[in-house]
Each structure stands twice: as structure tokens, then as C-alpha cells.
């Protein structure tokens, strides 16, 4: 790992609440963005290279060549579109139950928890992003995304991984193609038990650090 003094730090906060009271919480540094995020940046910068996105469905590239001329938007999947709505697990923060070690080459949570009230399921609230434009009041905390997940299954669920997914469509030469689910970030976390009736809140907090 390169030791860098400045850049963007991403922290991961988990809290479990019951009847609105916090019964457990943890704060840690996020492990990392995965390759898909790197390709987002690279592809957006040069607009000519092939995109290397891996969809979560099968890890395959959705197409072989997205290169395009400037003005025709060779930028494919330039937006991540993480703003999941209620009950939406196609995008946003997702929880999972696998503690398979992290790798930048992963393209999905290893065992994502689906939305619902059945056994092993959680009910996903809408994503929230703050601060809302154009308020950037604090120079220290510029970006926070968070989501509640309620355990209405009737039994305890143990969370071991967290991910951030996007659900963008892609476009080349002005034509649109179907949306695909893409993972951008994955964290393996210490066992976090969410009992029946409790709510898990997950926050990713990004801030700049100046050396």
C-alpha cells in the first residue's frame, strides 16, 4: 500500500438503533473503492479509452468497446447514480453477510441481503446524500451518504459486508443502452448483529485531507 499524506479519506460509520436509541455503533475507515471506481475516473478523464466496468450480474464487461469522440460522449457510465429509493437494492448502500476478504477486483457483494421482510431479509430505506447543493458549509466534511435498513424479518441478522452500488445506463455515440448494476465500493466489517425490530444505519463520509 502506498502511504499518502493527502487526498480523500472515506470513513464508514455503522449504528444500530432500537426505538430510535443507538444500541451499538462503530466508526472505521472504509476499506476502499474497487476497480470500477478507478475506471470511472479514468474513463471520464480521457473519454477515449475502453471502459472496463464489470457488472454485478456476472462480472463481465457489458460491451467490448465504449470509446467515443468528445461531443458524442465516449464517457460511458459517467454517473454512478447511487440514489436508491425505498426498497431499492439496484443502487445505493447495500449490506451483506459474507466476510470474504476484500479485493479491488471484486464486482459485487459476496452475499448481499435482499429487500423484504422474509427470513434473512432487510427493508431498505431511501438513500440520503448530504450536504444538499449548494451548501458546502464545512471544509472538513464535504460528502456523506447514508441509508437505513430495518430488520423486520423476526430474527437477528449478522452484517459482515457493506457495499455501494450504482445503477447507471451507458451511452455511446448518442445511443442509450440498458442500465446495469455496478459495485463501486466494498467493506468487510466486524460482525454487526441487527436484532429483529432494530435498524441499521450505514454512513460513508468522505473528506479531503491536505498535507
Amino acid at each position, binding site marked *: *500500500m502506498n502511504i*499518502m*499524506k*493527502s*487526498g*480523500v*479519506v472515506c470513513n464508514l460509520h455503522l449504528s444500530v438503533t432500537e426505538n430510535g436509541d443507538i*444500541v*451499538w455503533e462503530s*466508526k*472505521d*475507515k472504509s*476499506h*476502499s*473503492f*474497487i*476497480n470500477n471506481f*478507478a475506471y*470511472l475516473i*479514468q474513463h*471520464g*478523464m*480521457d*473519454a*477515449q479509452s475502453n471502459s472496463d466496468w464489470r457488472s454485478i450480474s456476472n462480472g463481465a464487461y457489458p460491451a467490448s468497446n465504449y470509446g467515443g469522440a*468528445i461531443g*458524442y*460522449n465516449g464517457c460511458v*457510465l*459517467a*454517473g*454512478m447514480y*447511487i*440514489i436508491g429509493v425505498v426498497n431499492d437494492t439496484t443502487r445505493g448502500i447495500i449490506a451483506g453477510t459474507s466476510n470474504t476478504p*476484500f479485493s*479491488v*477486483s471484486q464486482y459485487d457483494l459476496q452475499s448481499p441481503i435482499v429487500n423484504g421482510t422474509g427470513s434473512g431479509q432487510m427493508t431498505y430505506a431511501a438513500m440520503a*446524500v448530504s450536504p*444538499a*447543493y*449548494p451548501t*458546502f458549509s464545512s*471544509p472538513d466534511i*464535504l*460528502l456523506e451518504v447514508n441509508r437505513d435498513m430495518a430488520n423486520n424479518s423476526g430474527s*437477528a441478522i449478522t452484517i459482515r459486508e457493506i457495499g455501494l452500488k450504482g445503477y447507471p*445506463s*451507458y*451511452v455511446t455515440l*448518442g445511443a*442509450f443502452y440498458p*442500465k446495469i448494476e455496478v459495485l463501486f465500493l466494498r467493506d468487510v466489517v466486524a460482525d*454487526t*448483529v441487527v*436484532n*429483529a425490530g432494530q435498524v441499521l444505519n450505514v454512513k460513508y463520509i*468522505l473528506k*479531503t485531507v*491536505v*498535507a
Partner: protein
Amino acid sequence: MITMEPQVEELTDVSPNIGAAYEITVFDKDGNVKQVIKDDAKCFVQNFLRLVRYWFVNANNVGDVGAPSGFKNLSGSVVQTTSALPPYNTIQFGSWLTNAGVGDLTRGIVAGSGSVAVTDDDYKLGSIITNGSGSGQLSYDSTVFNPVSIVGNTVTLTQMRMTSNFTVNPIVISEIGLYMLGIITIMTIRDILVPSITLGAGESALIAYKIIING
């Protein structure tokens, strides 16, 4: 019911998930390497996080409006943009380009002569060195990208740009930055060079920025 003890603790690891480094290679007028400087980049400015936010909320399809995002332009004014404004096949979908052509200062790596300390609210170089062969000007080549490098869980994105002094007098480079072009030009990285670099007449500097994502 399963109970857990509170695990709240202060963070001790504040090393960046996303960082940058620069490498500058100075060539004399005969093309020989004269000097090499390597260091961590000192500052992703706020615009970079605004860009991450833009990517987060951005949608690039009809009907997926996305949320508006604000950036500071080179004048320091906050400009609002969203990906959902037609025409849908233009760069405003989300490309923030650094693929500068020859002489293009709207994007890519740029050099300057300012020396004011970096802050994360910076929105432009202190004093950009313009393109040309007149007094105090540098000739900027086009941006070159390396393929994405993945070593272990570290991903590195490298781009570089040659700048040459075709004037008859030395030119001092004391700051560098990365400009990105969407519907406006924004600065996302700025660094002060200590010590500064002096390019004699006929000399060149290859300036490389590496964006590093640590897993």
C-alpha cells in the same frame, strides 16, 4: 436477542483512500534528463469531492434527472450543473476531461508561477503560465495516459504532459495543477513545488500526475 458492546472509537488510520502523487522530469535542451522530482500531491481541492458527489448522484439517461451539483469555476463562482440537461449526448453527462490537446489549457496538467500555499478551497492556479513561445510562456504538449495499473489492491491512474520553454529566457515553475473540463473548467488538484523548477531556454519538463486508489 443478541447483544453487542459499543465499539465506538476514534479513527487512527486517516491515510487517504484516494490520493495523488506527481513526478516531474526535467530535460535539458539536448534531451538529457537533468532533474527528477517525486512527491505526494498535497491537495485534492474541494472540487474533487464535489466531482465525486456529482458522480454519485449523476444519472445519464432520459428520465433519471439526478441531482444538481455545484463546482467552483476558475473565477471562484459556484456553477450548478446536472447530467440531465439536454442534449444528452454531450460531455455534460459526466466526463470531466483531462485529455488536453496541444496548447489546450482548459483541461489537463497545467503549470504556474504562483507560490501561495495550497488550501482545499483553491479553485485555480495562483498564476497559470500560458501557452506559447512568447516571454514567460510555455509550450504545452497533449496529455498522455498510461493504462490503468493494478498492483495488489492499489490502482494507479497516470497521466502526463510535456511542457517546453521555447523562449530565450528561463521560466520558473512553482506550482502545478490538474484542470478538468466538463461544461466548465474546474481545478481538482493543486500543488506548490518546493523548491521550484527552472526551465532554461530550450528545456522541457514532463509532468505526471498519478491518482492512487488504495484498497
